[in-house]
């Protein structure tokens, strides 16, 4: 009755009943992979540094979990950030960060992989390394500690994490990870010191070993030079991608959580990349070129997934679903498949044409959740500046059509703080809401059940975008802009406004364009107690500012400065395939208010096709 396989398992069992949602910490889910110990020669602890229910919803982890476990003698195990209640017990009872599959201390694995999905996770990254019982700085870690390899969208600018990671995997991981494991196998057999493994990683494209580079700075704080410390380290690290989506591995037997998670459903990725070229959008740049999965393959994946999971809902994933080349056929086909299997389907952003209305009319629940438009800016002029291809005529005619079909709610997404934005552009947000309200009145005779939700997020300039040089608004400026929109919207009772927290956006902006000098700030922030910064109830702005002050790093230098075209950028070592020249050209066109067409209608020479196949 009281038997446990290991001392650690016993400690865990005794602790989890004391915390909220014990299901987060025990593993054992359907389709979780646990190999017999004697078949395993390499162990990878793969972490997503947020709570279980967020991490489990991350598709990237599920893909790499499959890729790694498909290698017969590799055991890949999942790790998520414990909530604060469990962390406290872990620290009290000396429970180290452990993996869900075999409940081993992370420190016992060969590689501790961490996927950094967004900027606000950086403190969790450090906290998890610490919980695992390791030193956070790579240089201080022991020869017996696992290698820490980071990846994920946030590492397209790896520098704020550079002193903590042994290596970064830049870009898509499907092909890289088996290569890393081969190097690891060789290294383990050789018995050489850890540095040799890191050197061998330099032979793999897309691998960045930050310890092999040194940054020097000018008086004014800008970067003077990036120097290599190991001559065989690459001069430039180009991201890795999967060129052919049909042969790319995709989880057909994903781990099915017991507890409900953020995306608790079957999911199939239909394509990667986006051709639209919105100038503020990092995803639109770093995931180039567009690569589609064939309809046949998508169907096959969905069928297998439903069979292996018993999920009651399917969703399809991509940047702008409506751009799939055979979207109508695909959606019709999948809807039929779902009907046959008693499965409901959820569809993200379709372009609003007659087809999509037919589809949405069929999909239950759509009317309730309402129509969604990512308008982004309140005037055509500003939409041209950011290259957002949506017109008000389109929004209005689609709204009218929706209202005539009996819809009552609409969601509008905007950004504040865009380059070249004026108060008139912001007033335009309220105008659009008002015009939609009037259309509803025309159709229905009264305002009645109409509800319009206006969501305003704060623009954060991101690396690898045309706006990477742009000074971000101050939080006072953001707040003033929110007020302005709020006052204009107030008289309209059917319009609800929500906006993002300005301080969070500011910090996100600082971290996004940070460099190595910020590493010590992160350590200090963690020391002061910062964690789960993406969670409103945990985010502590004052502690962060304290951390900057204590480490003499000026956050404004990163977020609020107009960066120069001729500056060396902290992420210049990292390549997305897109030329810096292209970003520069696009930024200049933005100044002039010129648009750049969707590159499906003609190549815009971004440079991606010189490295990959478009």
């Amino acid at each position, binding site marked *: *009755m*009281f038997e446990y396989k290991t001392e650690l398992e016993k400690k865990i*069992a*005794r602790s*989890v*009943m004391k915390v909220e949602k*014990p*299901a987060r910490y*025990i*593993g*054992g*889910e*359907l389709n*979780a992979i646990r190999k017999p110990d004697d078949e395993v020669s390499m162990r990878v602890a793969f972490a997503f540094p947020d709570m279980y229910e967020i991490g489990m919803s991350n598709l990237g982890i599920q893909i790499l979990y499959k890729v790694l476990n498909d290698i017969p003698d590799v055991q890949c195990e999942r790790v998520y950030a414990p909530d604060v209640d469990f962390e406290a017990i872990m620290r009290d009872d000396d429970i180290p960060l452990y993996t869900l599959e075999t409940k081993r201390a992370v420190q016992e694995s060969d590689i501790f992989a961490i996927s950094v999905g967004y900027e606000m996770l950086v403190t969790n990254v450090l906290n998890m390394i610490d919980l695992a019982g390791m030193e956070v700085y790579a240089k201080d870690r022991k020869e017996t500690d696992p290698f820490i390899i980071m990846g994920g969208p946030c590492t397209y600018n790896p520098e704020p994490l550079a002193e903590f990671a042994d290596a970064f995997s830049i870009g898509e991981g499907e092909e890289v990870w088996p290569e890393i494991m081969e190097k690891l196998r060789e290294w383990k057999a050789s018995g050489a010191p850890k540095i040799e493994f890191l050197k061998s990683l330099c032979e793999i494209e897309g691998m960045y070993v930050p310890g092999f580079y040194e940054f020097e700075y000018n008086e004014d704080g800008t970067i003077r030079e990036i120097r290599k410390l190991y001559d065989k380290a690459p001069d430039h690290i180009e991201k890795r991608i999967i060129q052919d989506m049909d042969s790319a591995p995709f989880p057909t037997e994903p781990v*099915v959580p*017991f*507890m*409900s998670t953020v995306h608790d459903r079957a999911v199939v990725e239909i394509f990667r990349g986006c051709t639209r070229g919105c100038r503020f959008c990092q995803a639109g740049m770093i995931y180039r070129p567009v690569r589609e999965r064939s309809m046949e393959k998508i169907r096959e994946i969905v069928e297998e997934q439903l*069979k*292996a*999971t*018993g*999920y*009651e809902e399917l969703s399809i994933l991509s940047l702008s679903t409506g751009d799939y080349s055979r979207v109508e056929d695909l959606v019709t086909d999948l809807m039929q498949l779902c009907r046959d299997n*008693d499965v409901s389907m959820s569809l993200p952003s379709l372009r609003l044409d007659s087809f999509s209305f037919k589809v949405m009319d069929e999909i239950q629940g759509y009317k309730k959740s309402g129509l969604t438009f990512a308008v982004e800016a309140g005037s055509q002029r500003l939409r041209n500046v950011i290259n957002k291809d949506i017109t008000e005529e389109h929004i209005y005619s689609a709204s009218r059509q929706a209202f005539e079909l009996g819809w009552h709610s609409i969601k509008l997404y905007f950004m504040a703080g865009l380059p070249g934005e004026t108060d008139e552009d912001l007033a335009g947000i309220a105008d659009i809401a008002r015009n939609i309200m009037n259309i509803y009145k025309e159709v229905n005779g009264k305002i009645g059940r109409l509800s319009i939700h206006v969501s305003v997020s704060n623009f954060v300039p991101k690396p690898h975008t045309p706006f990477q040089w742009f000074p971000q608004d101050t939080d006072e400026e953001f707040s003033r802009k929110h007020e302005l929109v709020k006052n204009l919207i107030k008289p309209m009772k059917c319009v609800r406004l929500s906006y993002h927290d300005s301080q969070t956006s500011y910090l996100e902006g600082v971290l996004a364009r940070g460099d190595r000098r910020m590493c010590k700030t992160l350590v200090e922030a963690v020391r002061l107690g910062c964690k789960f910064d993406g969670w409103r109830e945990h985010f502590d702005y004052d502690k962060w500012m304290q951390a900057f002050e204590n480490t003499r790093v000026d956050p404004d230098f990163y977020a609020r400065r107009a960066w120069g075209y001729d500056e060396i950028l902290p992420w210049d070592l990292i390549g997305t395939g897109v030329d810096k020249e292209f970003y520069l050209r696009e930024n200049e066109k933005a100044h002039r208010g010129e648009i750049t067409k969707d590159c499906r209608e003609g190549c815009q020479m971004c440079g991606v096709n010189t490295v990959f196949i478009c």
Partner: protein
Amino acid sequence: MKFLVKWTKEGDMRYISHLDIMRLFQRAIKRKGIRMKYTEGYSPHPKMSIAQPLSLGYTSVGEYFEFESLEDMDPELVRELLDSAMPEGIRMDSCSVLRETKKAVGALITAGDYHVGIRMEDPEGYRKIREAARWFMEQPSVTVQKVQKKSGKIKEIDIRQKVRELEIQQQEGYLLLSLKVDTGSQSNLNPEVLLEKLRERAELSGGDMETMIERVEMYAESAEGTEIPLYFLK
């Protein structure tokens, strides 16, 4: 066709909540291609229920759930299919067919068997617990106070009446209490409440002991008025 499945919940599965188990079963049924009957109405949900939810943290070798399928199937095949769809720690032990008209099995439950394991550093503690248990069984009534969920009022409950059998055996490294207690919607006793009373009587604290609670079987009243294990229900 209506099925009654007896199942077990062991190891780490004891941390999986009632709601999560429901979802797990629904998905397992779906995965195995068994088509469930749904309730009518605005938001249809599958006709399925788990009898007498188990407290989080308890294991069990005597759990039951019932569900209705659209098509008739061999109950042993249903058992096999579902068993093969379960994670480690959950086993489908047996499956039988119930009359369609039968009301929910959960509502018929009257009693349950439990095993309670107690482990203590100090062997003297074992003696104290035995003593307390003997005392308990000798009393005509033992009351505890319970805070009513809704009103917040405090109510006196006689828990002695709810304990039908209590046996104690010393096992290798722990004390084993075997209980038969009132279980179900009419009268119910969570073994933890009894344990708390024994602890209090023995002047021990929760920190002195490590406990494990396992449900072993559940009973219902048969048509003849006798108490029978649930799996005998037709």
